[in-house]
């Protein structure tokens, strides 16, 4: 079937609109992070209770929330600071009102960008009459979409808006790379790619990639927050302090990161298996140690290592976090280096 050029063009316009909306959303998230009063916003009484007296010596009541005014014995060092004492003290009422508004605007713009993004993927798919993740451009669109979807889902359910500023930056960057570098005009797929197992495989891989990205962002944030917390207790100076101040405590981030990884690991496993089933249909070998397969396997092992590290005494925390980042590194390697520089079955040497 011929390509519907009009729809393909519409898809391109939509993605530019989406990038614009995401960018505005990102700026608002940044403003929100920089100026927002997070203790009152995040509504985390237990944490505030455990921490604020310990680190700031300021009554938790300063956050203005009545249900957390329970004073507790000092928390040990493991809790990271969420807001600097001086700022939460100075934060004026109208300032925080505006900040709250900015946070909402950030989510709204991200939602708008998400809708445009969805439209771009949909029209691209309709224009070529297939699932629109058949090349690196389309795949990048799809995986950033998965990442933003995961972010929006957890930020409504788990109040993880703080991820916004750190996630939207790489998303906008990736989409920029997609439209500027990876772009290819809409076209049908070559015969080997016309298989529903491949569709399943790539869909699962895309979702997994997107969620892994969110997990990596949460892990990076954890490392910054954890360093900051350690620096507070030892009194040593530390870099990225201003970044850590706009983040929740390390424990929260660690938990968020783990949840994301635990959620997505089975999806990744399934994606690799679906790829193997596809390969079996296409070539008669479910596993050939093709470079892409090999790296999918390496990714799988590294994340399996992370899950084990997380459950092993002495490996929790920072060490496990490095393993998770290594895992994401292998995904990036697979996507950029293997796809572009190393030829294998995936690049269709034969047919």
């Amino acid at each position, binding site marked *: 079937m011929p390509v519907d050029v009009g729809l393909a063009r519409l898809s391109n316009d939509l993605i530019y609109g989406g990038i614009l909306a995401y960018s505005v959303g990102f700026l608002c998230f940044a403003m929100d992070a920089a100026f927002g009063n997070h203790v009152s916003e*995040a509504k*985390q*009484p*237990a*944490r505030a209770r*455990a*921490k604020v007296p310990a680190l700031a010596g300021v009554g938790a009541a300063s956050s203005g929330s*009545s*249900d*957390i005014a*329970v004073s507790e*014995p000092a*928390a*040990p060092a*493991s809790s*990271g600071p969420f807001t600097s004492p001086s700022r939460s003290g100075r934060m004026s009422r109208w300032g925080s009102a505006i900040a709250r508004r900015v946070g909402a605007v950030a989510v709204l713009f991200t939602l708008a960008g998400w809708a445009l993004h969805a439209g771009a993927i949909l029209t691209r798919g309709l224009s070529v009459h297939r699932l629109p993740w058949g090349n690196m451009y389309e795949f990048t669109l799809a995986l950033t979409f998965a990442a933003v979807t995961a972010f929006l889902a957890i930020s409504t359910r*788990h*109040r993880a808006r703080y991820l916004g500023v750190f996630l939207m930056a790489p998303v906008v960057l990736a989409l920029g790379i997609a439209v500027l570098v990876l772009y290819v005009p809409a*076209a*049908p797929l*070559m*015969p*080997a790619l*016309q298989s529903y*197992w491949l569709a399943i495989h790539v869909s699962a891989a895309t979702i997994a990639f997107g969620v892994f990205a969110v997990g990596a962002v949460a892990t990076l944030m954890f490392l910054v927050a954890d360093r900051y917390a350690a620096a507070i207790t030892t009194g040593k100076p530390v870099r990225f302090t201003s970044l850590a101040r706009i983040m929740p405590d390390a*424990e*929260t981030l660690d*938990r968020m990161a*783990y*949840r994301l990884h*635990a959620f997505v690991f*089975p999806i990744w*496993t399934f994606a690799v*298996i679906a790829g193997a*089933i*596809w390969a*079996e*249909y*296409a*070539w*008669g*070998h*479910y*596993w050939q*140690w093709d*470079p892409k397969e*090999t*790296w999918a396997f390496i990714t799988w*092992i590294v994340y*399996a*290592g992370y899950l*084990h590290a997380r*459950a*092993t*005494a002495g490996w929790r925390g920072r060490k496990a976090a490095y393993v998770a980042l290594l895992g994401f590194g292998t995904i990036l390697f697979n996507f950029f280096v*293997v796809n572009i520089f190393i*030829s*294998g*079955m995936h690049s269709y040497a034969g*047919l």
Partner: protein
Amino acid sequence: MSETPVDVRENPDTSAVSGLDTVPEAPDEYGTRQRAPKTSVSSVFSFLRWAWYSLTSMRTALILLFLLALASVPGSILPQRGGSDPFRVNQYYLDHPTLAPILDHVGLFNVFGSVWFAAIYLLLFVSLAGCVLPRSKRHLKAMRLRPPAAPKNIGRLPFSTSWFTELEPDAALDKVHAFLRAKHFRADRAPSSVNAEKGYLRETGNLLFHLALLVVLLGVAVTAGFSYNGSVLVKEHDAFTNTVISYDAFTPGRFVDRAKLPPFSFTLNKFEATYHRGDNARGDADTFDAYVTWQPNLDAPAREYDVRVNHPLSTQGTNVYLGGHGYAPHFIIRDAAGHTFDQTVPFLPQKGTYQYQGVVKLPDAKPDQLGITGFFLPTASVDPTTRQPISIFPAADNPAVVIGVFSGNLGLDTGVPQSVYELDTSKLTRLTTAVMRPGDTITLPGGEGTVTFAGFEEWASFNITHDPGKPIVLVAVCAMVLGLLASLGIRRRRVWVRASRDFAGRTLVEVGGLTRTDASGGFDDEFARLMTSLRTAVPADDGDPADHRDAGGADQRADFVATVPQPVAAPDKED
């Protein structure tokens, strides 16, 4: 999840009461040793025992797993003999003449078939088996275990709450028992408490995953011995019979009986390819169809099948996949002595072009041997800059061949094996070069004869594989996914409830909860919800201690604040 602000306390020091904590050097939450116990190596036996413990510790298994990943890296970066393009190894030898033999010597051009890769694989398997199998035994026992008895001080559990009720202690506990059972807890009614646990499937899932992984490792390795694969190029109208000699290449596993391959056969009636003709991705393939007539054995009726990419022909556990395709020009050559040679020769696709290259060898031509090298151009055109004939489209819209004809000695008698797709021109002299269209005939200079380009056929290559281990591996990987879902998605948690009379004669209900490896969080919410409904089942009387404490008008959630002041250490989860 934290729609409910969390007022459930979390205690840091639960190790005193929980049987669930990880104690170093003891089985961890997986019931697995993390480190080998230190044993003095005083005798061979104790050394062996130490070696076995070390090998089967979780740490070793993980290190081996990482080693396996690390070992596969060079296999993905260096060209591999078994890979998609084995010729790249030769190219590598030419490009890096000193480095290549060294790499080759340590097996880096055949990583996945190398001894050291197999060694890691084998060690990993043994380690995993030694780690998982004993655990399965323990787990089978643990699965039938009743929930453990309530700890002395329920209030010191990570999650706890209490209230007074007007019910008698026994009646209250009966209600709690019924309630927890209805919530699918495994609950025991002890004389003064209810002990309950839920989420046993978590461990089952975890075990299923690891066992299945074991099966996959085993299945892949063992069934390889019973597998074979091969490839064959078939021209249109030609037939293939599944015997070892019919293959162009055949790789059997160790235990394959070469004489007993399934006796199917097929004839390639027609190969058809269609391509994009628009400007967009012009020349990319749309469809490939190899129409065959096949029989499962000689006595069976013949059937039709369309072998496509992603659509193999399957029979008797053997699959026939469509591989490559190309053209086979048909030449009629008459030599100086008047003999006629009728040759239809497959030409191979040349990467990055729409041309097909091949040779014709006529060792029996007289007086001199004849050889032809040539290109088949399915859609011939002339390159505007070089003025050379080229092909601009993969379909045979305007077919032509460009040939060079040679006479002399083909070099077939030197004993060195030669590729049928290459011509050694060192002892040949070029007679002529020509561009021909179907039907054209050229006369060779010096009365050496004539060459006619009579037409062409298409050919397809087929990969034929037989792997009896596939169903085993497939079932095992499905089990792996299921196991993972249970293992990562289910939380194991224990709840204890005690009811007792206090000095004033009132019934105090104390509830404590504990979750194992609650790395994923969320038990606080579940516990809070559970308590909300439990307090409906076992209603609080007016003198509830929690109510008094929170007389300031805090909402109902404050009920879950424990009665005993406690240190709060871990910052609370937020989710």
